[in-house]
């Protein structure tokens, strides 16, 4: 399973990002092969509005099957859920720690957005 982790840096030891839309990087980790790759999210970081939507599109295009992040707003949630991407919530310190949590089955799937949209 290909899983995206929100990260403030470009490697596994980077700080895990609690934000989804404006996370600087997504670390895409494959649970079967143990391999990881880095996906930049500059467009999301710099977008004036709808960072969550554009970040979610990025993950849909990258064909990931799950996301591990700290928070996920309503628009991003709808895009992700509508494309069958599972959303796990974590408050890990590093990406590596979040991967260990996922592998150890300690993360819960989120069935609803964790936050309201910013305009509400």
């Amino acid at each position: 399973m290909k899983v995206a982790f929100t990260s403030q840096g470009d490697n596994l030891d980077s700080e895990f990002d609690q934000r989804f839309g404006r996370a600087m990087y997504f670390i895409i980790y494959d649970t079967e092969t143990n391999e990881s790759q880095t996906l930049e999210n500059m467009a999301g970081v710099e977008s004036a509005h709808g960072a969550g939507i554009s970040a979610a599109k990025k993950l849909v295009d990258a064909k990931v099957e799950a996301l591990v992040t700290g928070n996920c707003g309503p628009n991003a949630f709808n895009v992700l859920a509508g494309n069958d991407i599972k959303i796990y919530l974590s408050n890990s310190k590093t990406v590596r720690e979040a991967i260990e949590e996922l592998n150890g089955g300690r993360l819960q799937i989120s069935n609803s957005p964790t936050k309201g949209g910013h305009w509400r």
Partner: protein
Amino acid sequence: MTLAVASGKGGTGKTTIATNLAMVAAEKYGQVTLLDCDVEEPNSHIFIKGTKIKEEIVNIKIPEVDESICTECGACSNFCQYNAIMSLKGKPVVFKEMCHSCGGCTLVCQPKAIHEVDHRIGLINFYSLGKINLIDGLLDVGSPLSPPLIGAVKKLEGKDTLNIIDAPPGTSCPVIEAIKDADYIILVTEPTPFGLNDLVLAVEVSRKLNKKFAVAINRVGSGDDRVHRYCKDENIPIILEIPDDRRIAELYSNGKTILDNLPEYRKSFEEVLTKIGVVIQNGQ
């Protein structure tokens, strides 16, 4: 002519000043149009107790995609800076709350699969009380975009009446939309560190917009003299000072105007209009 009452900070007394000025102006000069552009929470109607004449629904244009024509090229989604239209697995999806109604997606769509449809964002209410026409915008709950509604309210400015705009608080897009065409701006503040902080921002905005403006200080005596010193240093006229008078607060909380109930303040409101009239006439 259009006079806007703005403030960097909420709760400083914009509505108090806008409504009392409207009443003075109606007595002295005839027809006045008061435009309440604080569309998230318009409350001028609480003080100007007019008869409601009508209401109008305000819509903005948002895109709708005809999937039978769409070639899934993604041009619309690449174009949209607000991520309001997004190609997901080729199919465009519209996030209507994000849309700024620029119409760009309809232009870049080669197969012409996108057309615009109405999306309601709020209401405009029309009231009348003697010589005062009160027009307010009321944004729908959950609608994030107030500038288009403020723009719609401003289109109703009277051609041959004095117009007074009660602007929203802050210094962001809604305020710019409300004050950008005004001939004169009154910046309301209070003599506190927060009041001064936000006044400085509001002054910067007014200068950027190249507007004539003056400051009105509410609750004088409740804080310190930093706002007064700032205005002196920056050479900004103080056009009105309302003392920190408990009776004014009580009137406000009961939906009553200063003008009707505390005649000693009438003169200072009258002077505001006279001073602004002189400035406008002399082009200072």
